[in-house]
């Protein structure tokens, strides 16, 4: 399934990837071939089959509504590159 380079650039922006021009060219070919491979599935007639979102034949398990975790903000921010008290600090979000 052929893709054009603009589609690759758009997907890269959405995924926050910074691609060089050579990468754009290479990924356009690679991703197109991957989609083509997966696209083989479309050759099957699935008109009588219900759409599947999961392959496990069971429904979701539940937990009861009880507070069992939390209360450890020190651990929560252990890996934060920057912090202020127990807050994560990130570059200012401009709106």
């Amino acid at each position: 399934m052929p893709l054009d380079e603009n589609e690759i650039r758009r997907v890269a922006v959405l995924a926050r990837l910074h691609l060089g021009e050579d990468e754009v060219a290479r990924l356009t070919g690679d991703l197109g071939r991957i989609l083509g491979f997966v696209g083989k599935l479309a050759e099957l007639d699935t008109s009588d089959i219900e759409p599947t979102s999961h392959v496990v034949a069971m429904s979701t398990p539940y937990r009861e509504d009880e507070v069992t975790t939390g209360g450890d903000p020190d651990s929560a921010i252990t890996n934060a590159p920057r912090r202020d008290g127990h807050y994560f600090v990130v570059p200012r979000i401009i709106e």
Partner: protein
Amino acid sequence: MSAARSYYQEGGFETVIGLEVHCQLATASKLFCGCSAAFGAGANEHTCPVCLAMPGVLPVLNRCAVDYAIRAALATDSTINTNSRWARKNYFYPDLPKAYQITQYEQPYCEHGRVTFDLDGTEHTVRLTRIHMEEDAGKSVHDAHASWSLVDLNRAGVPLLEIVSEPELRSGAEASAYMRKMRSLVRYLGISDGNMNEGSMRCDANVSLRKRGATTLGTRAEIKNLNSFRSIERAIAYEIERQAEILLGGGAIVQETRLWDADRGVTRSMRSKEEAHDYRYFPEPDLLPLVIDDAWIERARSELPELPDARRGRFVTSYGLSGYDSGVLTASKELADWFEAAVAAHDNPKALANWITSEVLRIANESGAEGETDFSQLPFAPEHLAALVRLIDDGTISGKIAKTVFSKMVESGDDPAAIVAREGLVQVTDEGAITAIVDSVVAANTAKVAEYKSGKDKLFGFFVGQVMKESQGKANPASVNRLLKERLDG
């Protein structure tokens, strides 16, 4: 903007509004992990590897959140889908640690509902497109540093319902009344505290205009950040004028997200987010389909409390109240409970309803925040109001004295009987005592008596006033009238 306003007011345009209401569910824990869902803890106090999106963790669904969601579906006459599924909505934002929100997209658990609400005595019905469950994002604080924002993930993963209406609302007032009804419903159901100033309930409004009579929809703007009834009305009013101005000037509306700025009273464009509006939804692989079977629905239905519309109807039939008063009393569950507690203590629903809709509500509104009626702050209990009305009904005090007793109840919170005894406010029904006052008033105003007798009937009121004044308001008004008549006309 006056040209646009007058064109609008003359009915040239029709406003089309759809609301997306977000409502936090009042569960103890979050939607997919065991962290507390409570508001107001220290930063990141309510977090764990799941809601912090550490690698390798898996979400496990909170059964109670689904129970609450089912109640909302039943109360809005919706269709519940037996099978629904979870989806990932992908976007990057610092308050969203997974870089996706778990929500429902293609197969929500609930569709095709409706909500009726009352505005200025007219009943409106709005259809609901869908209700779905999703998780809330964290919170960011921007004012602490010039170049940094602070992120607190306590709210990340708190369960939300998103309630999407059809674009059937026609004004800011309708939108606000719809929102009030929605808040009343979730509070009756006990599934959310509906607290708008803490963000438990908030909404986005899709607003567009079209020429009256047109059948297609105009281009819409989505207004975010509406977290009070006043904001809803003001933001929509502003947006209507802004769009009317553009359309009348021959321009076109840009489909965009706008932010309501309450301080400046304007909506402004959030262009920075425009490009990100490709969420690439796909089925959440970490969660299996949600199955809500009939047994679960029936169990939830059997546990539903009496809802506002039914309670309003019952107030009309069992208490003989007007539809209007019943509507006011049942708008909040708290108020309706307060009224019924008072009626249980003294069986005079009409008098109690009058006192509550006038005096008690005034006091409760003064102590509550905007749009909130705060009954927890009332200095007296429903039984006290019942006791006050009983004192009137058995002739101990007059209606006029009752107002004095009421204001002392507000000040002190004391039992009305105690106030009456302490202040000596018991009504004088002893006709001998009243006759004595009548005699002294007549004797002291001989000139007025002569005028009255020569035909100046209006002076009767003057005599009544003098007698009441002399008795410090305590004389039984009916006795005063009769005894005065006998004395002056006899």
